[in-house]
Structure formats: C-alpha cells, structure tokens
C-alpha cells in the first residue's frame, strides 16, 4: 500500500474527528453562568392579551418554571404534553417564553414583514398552538426578537429555568422535559425549594 493513496482517507478522518468533537460539545454540559443569580427582569406582551405586559415579578413568592418554546420547535411538540400534565396534575406554575416565533422559523422569511404583521402572525400561531394542545402556562409571553432570551443565555429551544420564590435562578434544563428529566432533575429541586406545598 503506497502511502500517498491514504491521504484522502486521512483528511477525511481528520474532518470527521473535527465534526465529532464539535458536536460532542453538548450545550447541556455547559453550566449556565446565571445559576444563583437573579432572573433577569422583563416585561413582554402576553399571548392571551397582548396589551398586558408580564414578567418574573408576577410570580414572586413561589418556585416556578420559565419554559422557552416556539411553535416551530419540533422538540417542543414532544415536551408540550408533559408540561400540560405538570401544570394540571402537579400544579407547577410555568411561564412560557415564546422565542422568536416568526424569525426563528426556518420555513418562513420574516425579513419582509412589518413589526405589526409579525406580531399578529405570532399571536395567531401561539394561540392556535395553545388551544389545540392545551395551555400549561400561567401566562405565555412573546419574545419576538429574542432579546430576553439573550439575557437568559438561551442556546436553543426548548430550555427551562427553575426559579425560586426569591426570583433566583436555581437550575437550567436544556432540551425537552420528559418523564425522566422531571423525576430525576427538576422535581427534587422544585420540591426542595418548597414547590408543591400549599
């Protein structure tokens, strides 16, 4: 075997190694610098009544979840039923942050929309989603340009923050919440913060 004929294979292996390394850096393993810090404040229009602005201040005095989602997010579809169950059966207070509802959707070209059109389209889509699949949220708000998500250091959707009664971020879960994630990661922490007690 002449060595020069191995060159394409070697280059290919190097490329695959680079890719594998890059994708192995799972965002789930990156600790959020925000843990232990106060949840950044925001005031965003509510999906059910866009004239009302809502934010973390409305949830003071109890531990709650901030769930970052969007209707174009496939993993959110899987997660949604779980959220509805948590809200209905365990009474977990969840706030939904609808992240870049229009701009984040790869199927759509939002560049030619006026802000008014974008907002109306986003409201319609979010409401349809919540009507069809059930509404697990105390309230859901629109983060059309994703600025609030930047404050929270959101890498992608879905992500969920556990925030305590004093408004401090205690935990961040990246990816959809499933049965196991709730049982093993979130539920113990939520209960330890006094969640679920009257």
């Amino acid at each position, binding site marked *: *075997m002449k060595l020069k*004929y191995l060159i394409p*294979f070697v280059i290919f292996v190097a490329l695959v190694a680079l890719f594998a390394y890059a*994708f192995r850096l799972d965002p789930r393993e990156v600790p959020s610098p925000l843990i232990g810090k106060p949840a950044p404040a925001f005031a965003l229009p509510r999906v059910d009544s866009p004239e009302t602005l809502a934010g973390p201040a409305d949830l003071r005095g109890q531990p709650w979840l901030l769930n970052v989602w969007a209707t174009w997010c496939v993993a959110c579809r899987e997660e949604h039923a779980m959220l509805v169950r948590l809200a209905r059966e365990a009474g977990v207070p969840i706030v939904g942050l609808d992240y870049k509802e229009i701009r984040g959707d790869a199927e*759509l070209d939002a560049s*030619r*929309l006026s802000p008014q059109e974008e907002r109306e389209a986003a409201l319609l889509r979010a409401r349809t989603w919540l009507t069809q699949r059930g509404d697990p949220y105390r309230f859901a708000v629109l983060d059309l340009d994703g600025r609030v998500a930047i404050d929270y250091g959101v890498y*992608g959707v879905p992500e969920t923050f556990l925030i305590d009664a004093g408004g401090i971020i205690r935990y961040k879960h990246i990816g959809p919440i499933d049965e196991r994630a709730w049982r093993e990661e979130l539920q113990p922490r939520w209960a330890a913060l006094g969640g679920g007690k009257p």
Partner: protein
Amino acid sequence: MIPEMGQFALALAWALALVQAVLGLAGAARGSAGAMAAARRAALAQCAALVLAYACLTASFLRIDFSVLLVAANSSTRTPWFYRLTGVWGNHEGSMLLWALSLSLWQAAVAAFSRSLTESFRARVLGVLGAVSVGFLAFLVLTSNPFERLVPMPAEGRDLNPMLQDPGMIIHPPLLYMGYVGMAVAFAFAIAALLSGRMDAAWARWSRPWTLVAWVFLTLGILVGSAWAYYELGWGGWWFWDPVENASLMPWLLGTALLHSLIVTEKRGAFRSWTVLLAIGAFSLSLLGTFLVRSGVITSVHAFASDPKRGVFILGLLALTVGVSLLLFAWRAPRLSGGGAFAPVSREGSLLVNNVLMASAAGAVLLGTIYPMVIDALHAGKISVGPPYFETVFVPLMVPAVVLMALAPFLRWKRDALARVLRRVWPELIGALLIAALGVWAMNHVTFGAFLGIALTAWVVLASLRLLVDRLRQGGAVGLAARLRGIPGSWWGMWLSHLGVGVFILGVTLVGALEQRLDVKMMPGEAAELAGYRFVLRGVSEVPGPNYTAQRGELEVWREGRMLTVLAPEKRAYFRSAMPMTESAIDWGVFRDVYVSLGDPTGDGGWVVLLFYKPFISWIWFGAIAIAVGGLAAALDRRYRRLARRMASVPLPEALPEPAAEAVR
C-alpha cells in the same frame, strides 16, 4: 390499510436491498452465476416494492387520510390535489422516501440496461448500490417512518408549507434527487472497479453515460431550484449561496470534474485513481448535502443536538460510506495507476487543470458552507458566510476554467505547443477583448466585472464557432450534411454545453450590470417609471384562494405609449401559518424580465410596490438548459450504444487483467 401496506412494502424493500447487497458482492467474489442473477432480480423487486410504498403514501395524501401523521402535518382539506401530490415530499419522511425511490429506480435501470457489462461487474455494481440502499432504508424504517399513524385523527390538517405551494416545487425535488442519487451509480462503478481491479477504457465507457445522465438531472434540478427562488421568494435574486443551494452545487462541481476525468480515462487510460476519487467525492458530497438539508444542522446545530437521532444516523451513514470507500481506495488504487504519459501542454494537461479548478471550487464552497456550523458547534458564536466570500473565491477559480474550457478542445492529446494553438485562435482572443470593450462602452457601464463577463462569453462563443468550422473542414470530399452527421453526439454535447456556459455567463453579467430596481409607494391610479417602462397601479383587491386569501394588485405595464400587459402580483395569507407570502408577477421576455412584487400596505390605501427591470436574466436559464441538453447529447452518443451491442471490451495495454480469483493478496 393502505398505510400499513406501504409500511410492509418499505420493510420488504429493506430486506430485498440486503439480499441484493450480499448476493451481488459475494456472488461476484465467488463467481456464482446463480447468486449474481438473484441479485439482479432483487434489485428489480426492490424497485417494485418502493414504487408500491411510494404509491401508498401518495394515495394517503390524495385520499386526505389524516389518520396518517404525515398527511395531517402536510396537507389540509383545502389543499389543491396537485399540492397534496407534492406534499408527499414536502417534508422530511416523504422526501427520504423519494430519495430511496430514486435510488431504486437507478438500480433497476442498471439491472435492466447494462447487458454489455460482464456478469460479475454488474453484480458488484448492484451489490454496492444495494448496500447504500440498505443504509438509507434503515434510516427510513428506524428513524423516519412516513406511515406513522395519528390517534386521534384530527378533523383538519396543517397544510403544506406555503413556500412549497408552487409549480416549480412540483418538479424540482424529483429532478434534484435523481441527480443526487444518480451520483451513487458513478460511485458504485468506481467501487466495483476498486474491488475487481478492473478499470480500463471499457469501464470508462460504461461509467460515463450513467454519470452524464445523473449530471443532467442535477443540472436541471439546480436550474429549476434557482428559477423558483427567483420568482417565489420575491427578492428578484436567483442564487443566494445558502447552504441548501451549496449542497447541490458541490456534487455538481465534482460531477463536472468527474465527467472530464472519465474522458481521459477512456481515451488515454490515465487519471484512473483520480477518476475513482472524484466518483467517491461526488457521491460523498451528495450524501453530505442530504445530511445538511435533512438533519436540521443548518437551522441551528442546537436544533440538531436537541433531536440528534436522525442527524447522527445520517452522519454515521456518511462516515461509514466515505470511510470504507476511501480505505478501499488506499488499498486498491495503487493497482490502478498507469496510463499514457503526457506533457503539461496537452489535452490531458488541460483536463487535469479543469479537474483541479473544479475540485478547488467545490472545496471552497464546502468550507464556506460548513465553517459557520463548526463555529456554532464550538460555541464560538454565530457567524454567517455570505455571498461576498463565495464570489471572492469562486469567480477567480472559474475565470481560468472558462478560458481553458474554450481552448482545450483545440489542444492535441499527449503533447502540444501553446504557440501552435495560439497561432490558430489569436483572432478569437483579440476579437473577444474588442467585443468586451465595445460592449461596456455601448452599455455605458464600464466596470471590470462587466468587461470580464462579456469577454469570457465572447471568447467562448467565438472559439466554439471556430471549433465547429475547423471540424467541418475535416472530412474530405463528402458533403456538408454528411459531415455534420458524421460528428458524434459526444462532440456535439461538449460543444453545446461549453456554449451554454458562455450564454450563462452573459446572463449573469448583464443582469448584474444593468438591472434596475425601484421600491415605490403607490396609490391606486398612480404611476411609476423604471427603465423606460411605466407602471400604473389599477388597484389592490382581496381574492379568495383554495387555502389562502390574497391581496391581488393589478399593474398595467406601458412602454412607448402602448400597454404591454397587466401584471397581478399577490400577497397571500395562507390559513396554515398566518404568514403573508409574496407571489411576484413577471412579464417574461428573451431580453428582459419585468418583475413586480407587492410589499406592505401603507395604511392610507396605498401600497409599497417593488419594481425590477432584469435584462437578460432568461439567458441564465437558457445557458443552463444548453448545458443539460449537451450532457444528454453526449450520453446518447452512438459509441455507448455500439458498446452495448458489442459485448466484448478491449482493455488498454496497460490495464490490469481481471484477477481470476477475488482473493487478492
């Protein structure tokens, strides 16, 4: 019942592909005629099973069976029937089924139309194709079941993505997939050559028509995609260098290199390992394209990371296919080396430069396409590599390629003198420069880009004419008609494709230099002027569509006091997404398009209207069509059909004889 039947057919196809792969490869290695014949029948049966599976999915869409998840997610009761038909592939699962169907159609074609191949060689080709098919059918069955049921059945579906509800999208994906997947045939020929150690002129002659046909499909697929982007996206652009487009351009570039490399392998027995490498590369890039488009990695690497099942599967398939192929290449390719020696200035030399330039261009596009993803995956931030990068690296690689393209047919095989060729074509070279100078002066648009573009076109056209005249002068005493008939299809194909490149460049250059655009607010009854055309907005009215409502504008187009046409651009709101979609209206013409697209209402009854004047844009499509027709003419060359009739092949002197036993030590 129908979806279950489709599901069963899909699983059956998977099993048949496995049989085909094992019997094909093992049968060829052991020389078992029975196993090889069975592999061939398995390929045909696999194709029948996939046609059935595809028909079942199509039937579910046409019957509006919302109990199938895919139907509910991609159609609605109000979707017109032809968009329900295309809804089959307007989604992940269905488009992967179309991929598998294309592959099986190619396999059946190889099984049916390759009687000129030796039995063992055909069995190897079918074995390799079967192995690829096993991988993709496993992907479908295990991660992307198109027939998944939905319980309870919803009363209404989500409708097809409005962007895909367009006539162009009816033919674009099938053409593109036939092209992508057709590269698998060239790949299988290359792998079979490595396995058997047989790679001679006959091999190149078998391989080339298949590669040409795949390349023609790819060319047409890219053309339709580009035309769709032009009129559907409403920005008036025709190429955006986005990752999905690049995914189709990369295999096209390497496929082009492969076609040219195959000529040298056929005529001179040289470039063999290089040809094999290009065939592996072209198919690898087709797979990479499938990975990029299908894994979600483009939207965001984190979308990929949060639902990695599919992406990891395709990435694994890609790594396995390419890794095994390249290892096989490292092991067996040294046996393929050889071929006639040649001087740097020669037909071979020019084709080698063509190959290097095409491969470099593909590499540059690859780098620009995956670089942002790697940066994103490393959390080093989001960057985007845009048209400036691609134009900066792509144009300097293509300019020498085009200059050489027109010159190379004048060069002799083995050895030539540059001075001899230049003595023949200097009038064309000078002529091209003069025409370009005259052209930019006449257009009153003196830029280097415009000069370069016109000079290249003029050079290609003049040199092509010269080539034809020279060719017709040969042939002695017979009449002109007989001489024209005497020119083989592959020569006409080369000539037409090269001419098409010239026409394409002219379109790109002139639309870039001379296009005009106006964004203007218009009230009903008001007029606007652009490039000598006068546009009068009659009004905007609401028009209902089957699954949308549209605001339709009516604009009269006037020129020199005469009304040419009335254009009706629309702004549609599809019920599904609540998203306004722009439907531009175009008055097509050979020398110019007039393009109108509706912007936003201004609130006081007026509308923002986008007006474009696009000279010579159709020449981009004409050029691409000429390139494709040329490829088809070359594929239909008589010598390939003659070959089919004459079973025996003539190996080149330096070609290796096929080893008697396959146990190569």
